[in-house]
């Protein structure tokens, strides 16, 4: 990624978000770094407990007690959001960075009409008058594929199906023309034919508006169809990142390889799925050395001693592994 002339929209450096619970400190995000250039879609992938959603929430300053951003920088066009106050963050949320949440059933307010919830974004983040705002809402609703937009603005969330609500949420996220959209599992709650509609819609709208996106998901298939770059998280650490095709076709980290092999893909003819043995370790009590070593087929003595750091591998890939995979070799 280095050496490119593309300006960096967002730079995350050594982000640490911890949750101080009675049962111990949960290092949900433990030294995560990545960059996003303007117009780029980055996939943030991992299993439950990997810390991917917490990264998204940290960027927007949505970490509540007992959680706390313990260190690191989140630079949006050079401005460090970790140091920014709540007032400044409120300006940024919705205008500069907006968010699409996983569950379209709970991310809209059931007591307000769709129109009022859409209008709120523009009322807070623009100087437009009522009429122009209304016109903008109608136009945006039509853009996300909802017909009879005038009429639908008066409707309430319960009158919409899941797919329609997620369209509304996306419309709200796009309204103030943010430069970055964080989409946290935007299609996980939806059926596959609706998912494909929503993904196409997001891709089209992002390209049109020139926005960047962080797509947080557990679904490698969705990410591989949407993202330019992929960052893989495991136990709060980046274990691998790189360009989408390179990473999917020949990952360097055994965890990424395992994730890809355990997907029952339609074109995958294996009778048995490759499985990653064991389960994710307790994040309050991580093993010494590499977090993945207990499940890793390539682990050696060194992995139990020294935690690997993210180092450049072939092509665009970098991986945190002492014994990275070479292309063509299976874990």
């Amino acid at each position: 990624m280095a050496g490119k002339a593309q300006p960096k929209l967002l730079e995350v450096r050594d982000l640490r978000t911890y949750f101080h619970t009675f049962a111990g400190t949960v290092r949900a995000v433990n030294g995560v770094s990545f960059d996003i250039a303007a117009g780029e879609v980055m996939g943030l992938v991992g299993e439950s407990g990997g810390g991917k959603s917490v990264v998204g929430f940290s960027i927007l300053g949505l970490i509540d007690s007992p959680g706390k951003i313990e260190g690191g920088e989140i630079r949006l066009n050079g401005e460090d959001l970790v140091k920014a106050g709540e007032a400044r963050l409120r300006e940024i949320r919705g205008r500069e960075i907006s968010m699409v949440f996983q569950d379209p059933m709970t991310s809209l307010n059931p007591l307000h009409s769709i129109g009022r919830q859409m209008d709120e974004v523009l009322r807070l983040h623009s100087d437009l008058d009522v009429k122009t705002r209304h016109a903008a809402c109608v136009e945006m609703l039509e853009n996300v594929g909802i017909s009879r937009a005038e009429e639908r603005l008066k409707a309430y969330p319960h009158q919409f199906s899941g797919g329609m609500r997620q369209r509304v949420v996306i419309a709200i996220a796009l309204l103030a023309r943010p430069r970055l959209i964080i989409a946290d599992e935007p299609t996980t709650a939806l059926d596959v034919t609706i998912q494909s509609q929503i993904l196409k819609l997001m891709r089209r709208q992002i390209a049109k508006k020139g926005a960047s996106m962080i797509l947080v998901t557990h679904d490698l298939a969705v990410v591989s169809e949407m993202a330019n770059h992929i960052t893989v998280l495991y136990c709060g650490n980046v274990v691998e990142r790189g360009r989408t095709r390179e990473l999917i076709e020949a990952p360097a980290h055994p965890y990424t390889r395992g994730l890809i092999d355990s997907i029952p893909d339609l074109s995958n003819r294996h009778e048995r799925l490759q499985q990653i043995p064991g389960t994710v370790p307790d994040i309050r009590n991580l093993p010494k050395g590499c977090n993945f070593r207990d499940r890793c087929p390539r682990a050696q003595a060194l992995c139990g001693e020294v935690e690997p750091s993210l180092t450049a591998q072939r092509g665009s890939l970098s991986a945190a592994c002492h014994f990275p995979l070479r292309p063509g070799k299976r874990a």
Partner: protein
Amino acid sequence: MTEATAPMLDVRNLEMHFSLGGSVLDRLRFGKKGIRLDRPVVRAVNGVSFSIERGEIMALVGESGCGKSTVAKTIARIYKPTNGELRIDGEDVAEHDFAQMLPVRAKMQMIFQDPYASLNPRQKVRDIVAEPLLQQTATAAERREVPAKIEALLARVGLNAEHAGRYPHQFSGGQRQRIGIARALSVMPGLIVADEPVSALDVSIQAQILNLMKDLRDEFGLAYLFISHDLSVVHHIADKIGVMYLGFMVENAPRDVLFSRPRHPYTRALLSAAPSIKEKRDKEEIELVGEVPSALSLPSGCCFRTRCPFAWDRCAVERPDLHDVGDRQTVACHLIDEPERDVA
């Protein structure tokens, strides 16, 4: 499959309708013909037929609200079917009451979707797994064998003996699903009805459970009715697949036939919508517009016509039946009669 006996499961014209309650005031309707009392009925399953042989895995796929889970629950006789025949190992159980069902449950067990809600939080794993077995044991001698059986079962599904004394909350989602599988397996049934057994699990764990289910089938000759919304999971595990839409079976075929030659426009759309980690093959692109209609008021004619890119006037009038198109593939679509209309 060895002797020429009845199939493990045989379902004929299964219908499951739910009438919605509500107070008289809720149901009052004022129309041109005066006041009438509305009787809303959800037609969840509308005449579904299929059969599963011993050792065979049949999957039902479809989107939310297509009735696939209702089929599963009706077969497990959690619901009493509105209409139709339901033969388990040759015995029609559609009209059975609770007591009559008890011996049948030694032949058929169920695995549920949510491994958090389907285990009693106040029972130890040992008791959870033993429950169905104790229902089926009559003599004290049989009962004495139960603990040893439980231990063997837990070992078989990848848990160990010390887990038997723990409570469900001490386990991860994947381990809980293993407990659910051990419970279903305890009575050595011939048929397991599995309702979305892996959709709540992470992919690496999902692969473990799918592999386990396949191994158990090979070992014990189990038949599965496997309900899933995920085509790639179904492709991996099933021998044959039924595609459901709005309570109707629209296509039914062996796995490889269905994936290489899907005939129904809905199946084709599902396949084209499934995301894949592989680079786009030259696959057909059928994009569906709109959403699934309500099961409270089914469309006339073909259930899929409101979203079908090929639909014409015949589809609104005449409901297509399942037609045999060879290779054990059956399709319910008028395009089979009029293939010249199949131009995207």
